[in-house]
């Protein structure tokens, strides 16, 4: 039997980056906020203890910080005519779980998108003509410009303390930064991390080729920092335990290190952990949410009435909750009608592994976002006319770690076990690096999310079904990027280069990236978007949906910087406009 709880002003579903930011901003506006999180409470002091945090077996192999597939998973297929099967062991991506969400186990690459990524469709058509767009693509403009979002990027970067070097301050190009980035009001809050030897070779090699390398903007902080909320962070120790790990040194920006210390001091805030929201409840006319229903760790069902419902889960779960709750019209790939589940995108990576003679990279001294980048081939920075594809990617050399279980690079032809393998691992561990491209992923009519007709979760709800494959445009782009990576690796002095190309047939098995985007995208047209420009549901005005699920398509960047900026953008809209006059903001 479902028990009904006293009303709250706001219920937040999921307490990761967006959930903690929205909770804090709305508590400060005087609202009572309850955050409902299906995973456990996690705290730096208790859970990411320096004595136990760097445990590769526990965290990287056994996935302690991730959602357990037995608790919930997705089904996947490449094309609509296939039968999707459930993912029973995470591979291609690693959805987070628990307080902090993916903000706990991310690497910390923190980007803004290019101004032309915001008006992508308009820009590409004006430069190349509509016929240049890939067949069946659903490329859309974002509903806000780069200029409109700039202050909110700035706000997020100051909360997270991002380390980097600006390339464009108020229109003036800055030496050593990214000359292709959009204008920034301010320099980064903290200076870049200290580059390693491999990054130095990359920077020198890229410059020889006439390219424009710069330090990767990093949420692993270079110096001690007190953020705009008064929370103190410590400098990164280059320990190499970022991705898949919680940071024990208060050095990686996360909800734990940046927001929760002040959020838990708010009298209007309450968190309920190990509680999973099963449905958003709607009024009889389906124009308002009345609250949510959730199940606690003992299996007891509760109804939490609220005036505002914020979906702040990971991209998959936001989309599924909308589908299960009947918020917005589900996307139908046959007719192209409907919006929820539309514009699912991923990320298209490619690159090279580069082996060197006579170097010592000390790869163990890494950090999640210790790297050098260049944007000469990102987005529409370069002329795509001769190349026959759209999109691009950032190219980088990064040293995240040389952890003992998963890092043992050897050239092709090396035996995969035995003394010869051991000898080659020892030989190459400190003489290998990579040059990789993180490429864009654009939307297509037959790449989408919907509810699986067969498989259900432990609560009897249909699993989310993914239908996705890399398309010819993305495969051509990935090849072009790998060619560029190869040129740079050669300029760095690599003696042997192994290409990592991207072909058709996306596989859920090898890890690729956790940058799943779209499915509940924002836009200016309710016929092609689930959310308006304030991340507000077109259909249910007191439901706002945060996270990468709102991206119309994915750019050649990591998503968290954009996710953070959109959270502050949405928080401002709720606080300054919605509270005074609850109703559709557009």
């Amino acid at each position, binding site marked *: 039997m479902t028990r009904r709880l006293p009303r709250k002003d706001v219920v937040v579903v999921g307490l990761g980056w967006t959930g903690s930011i929205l909770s804090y901003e709305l508590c400060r506006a005087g609202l009572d906020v309850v955050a409902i999180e299906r995973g456990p409470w996690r705290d730096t*002091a*208790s859970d990411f203890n320096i004595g136990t945090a760097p445990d590769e077996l526990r965290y990287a192999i056994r996935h302690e910080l991730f959602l357990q597939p037995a608790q919930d998973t997705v089904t996947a297929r490449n094309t609509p005519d296939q039968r999707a099967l459930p993912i029973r062991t995470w591979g291609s991506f690693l959805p987070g779980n628990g307080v902090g969400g993916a903000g706990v186990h991310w690497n910390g690459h923190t980007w803004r998108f290019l101004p032309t990524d915001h008006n992508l469709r308009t820009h590409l058509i004006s430069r190349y003509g509509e016929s240049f767009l890939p067949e069946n693509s659903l490329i859309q403009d974002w509903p806000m410009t780069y200029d409109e979002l700039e202050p909110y990027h700035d706000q997020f970067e100051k909360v997270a303390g991002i380390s980097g070097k600006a390339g464009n301050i108020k229109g003036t190009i800055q030496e050593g930064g990214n000359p292709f980035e959009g204008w920034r009001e301010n320099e980064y809050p903290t200076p870049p991390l200290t580059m390693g030897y491999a990054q130095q070779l990359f920077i020198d090699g890229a410059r020889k080729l006439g390219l424009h390398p710069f330090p990767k903007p990093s949420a692993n902080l270079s110096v*001690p920092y007190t953020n705009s909320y*008064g929370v103190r962070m410590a400098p990164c*120790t280059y*320990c190499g335990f970022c991705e898949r790990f919680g940071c024990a040194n*208060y050095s990686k920006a996360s909800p734990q290190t940046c927001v929760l210390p002040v959020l838990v*001091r708010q009298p209007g805030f309450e968190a309920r952990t190990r509680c999973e929201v099963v449905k958003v409840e709607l009024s009889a006319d389906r124009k308002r949410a009345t609250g949510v229903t959730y199940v606690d760790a003992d299996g007891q069902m509760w109804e939490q009435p609220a005036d505002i419902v914020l979906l702040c889960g990971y991209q998959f779960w936001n989309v599924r909750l909308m589908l299960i709750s009947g918020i917005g019209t589900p996307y139908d790939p046959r007719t192209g009608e409907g919006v929820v589940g539309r514009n699912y995108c991923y990320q298209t990576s490619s690159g090279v592994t580069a082996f060197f003679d006579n170097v010592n990279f000390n790869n163990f001294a890494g950090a999640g976002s210790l790297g050098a980048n260049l944007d000469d081939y990102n987005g529409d920075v370069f002329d795509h006319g001769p190349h026959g594809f759209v999109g691009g990617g950032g190219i980088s050399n990064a040293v995240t770690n040389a952890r003992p279980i998963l890092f043992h690079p050897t050239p092709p032809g090396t035996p995969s076990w035995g003394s010869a393998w051991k000898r080659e691992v020892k030989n190459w561990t400190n003489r290998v690096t990579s040059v990789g491209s993180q490429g864009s992923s654009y939307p297509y009519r037959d790449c989408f999310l919907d509810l699986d007709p067969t498989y259900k979760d432990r609560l009897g709800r249909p699993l989310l079904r993914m239908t996705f494959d890399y398309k010819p445009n993305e495969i051509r782009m990935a090849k072009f990027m790998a060619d560029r990576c190869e040129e740079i690796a050669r300029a760095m002095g690599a003696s042997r280069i192994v290409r990592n190309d991207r072909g058709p047939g996306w596989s859920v098995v090898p890890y690729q990236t956790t940058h799943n985007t779209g499915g509940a995208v924002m836009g200016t047209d309710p016929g092609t978007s689930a959310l308006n420009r304030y991340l507000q549901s077109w259909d249910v005005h007191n439901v706002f949906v945060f996270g990468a699920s709102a991206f119309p398509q994915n750019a050649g960047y990591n998503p968290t910087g954009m996710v953070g900026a959109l959270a502050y953008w949405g928080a401002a809209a709720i606080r300054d406009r919605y509270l005074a006059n609850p109703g559709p903001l557009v």
Partner: protein
Amino acid sequence: MSARIIGRAGMRLAALLGVLLLAAPASAAPDDFERIERGRYLATVGDCVACHRGPNGPYGGGTALETPFGNIYPPNITPDRVTGIGAWSADDFWNAMHNGVRPDGAHLYPGFPYPNFTKVTRADSDAIFAFLQTLPPVNAPRRPTELPFPLNIRFAMFGWNMLFFSPGEFVPDPGKPAEWNRGAYLVEGLGHCGACHTAKNFLGADSGTSLGGGMVQGWTAPALTSDSRTGLGAWSVEEVMEFLRTGRNVRSAASGIMAEAVEHSTHAFTESDLRAIAVYLKSLPGDGADAPAPVAASDPTMRQGAAIYADGCQACHRGDGQGVEGIFSRLAGNQIAQQAEPAGLIRMVLAGSRAAATDAAPTAPAMPPFGWRLSDEEVAAVTTFVRNSWGNAGPAVTAADVAAQRGRLAGR
């Protein structure tokens, strides 16, 4: 929130007065507002909740107060007439504060720091009482103490008082500035700093240098005197103030029981009271003891300790022992590291500790426990290293010292 409590309590009191036609012990009449608010502040300065909190709220009592002799359960001090102090008069309260005696004539245990509170003025005592009488009454009977015979006989405290206690309000020193006198009044009286920071004899009474440092519940309460190695000699007035206000400063972070004191009490002190306390503490002389000669870096224990430090400690505390300002404590010059008694430092390494969280410094970083992975010998080596590096000096720690502290912690 607080206004709501006052309002509700005031209504209850009014009802009580109407029915019982009592001469009010203290009423919440509007003209008492200032006195009650002053009492609220003074109750915070005295950190009443540190001991009187419990399952029934911040003043409802019931949490064990650990003493070397056994647990005491500080009582409910809400105005409940049966289980709290609702039937007390302001005179009764003053008698408890000033003489350590309950209205029924029974002696209080000095776990209730009446040897300090006796210095509180009558006006301040009355203000605290007036504030306590505005709290919502909570029905929470007191738990009996767990003291052994003969300490379980309260009259035994009569003899203790004969030996160690002389009642008397604080007398300002006319030769000192008002600020110093205010600081002395707060430190020696209501603030009861010496309850932890003054060493105790085998009967639990102050012994040795006042505020010369003590041990409480396995924590080091460092000297508050001007000793530059074990006390506040190297701290500026501003650094003392920042520590009390925020729980940290460039040198150190409050942890253990002091973290609680900051969170419940000192963070809320007025700037003028913080300055007065700092000025007074900075005036206290050290005991003048010479620093011991540091253990040589070439000593095998020091070399073992240096290796352990490099593996387990220096990522946060840095190779030069400077830590990271505002988050990881500086070990160079650290007081807790250099106390003659190493138990507090050993506890920190074995069991870890969490810094205070305050509005001014909300991060609350933690020192993780290492007892699970370091042997007694290794803890002795690394603590000896910390006590004798970067200009520090302190007697070497032995594996037996670590084993003893490990044994005490195992009993917690």
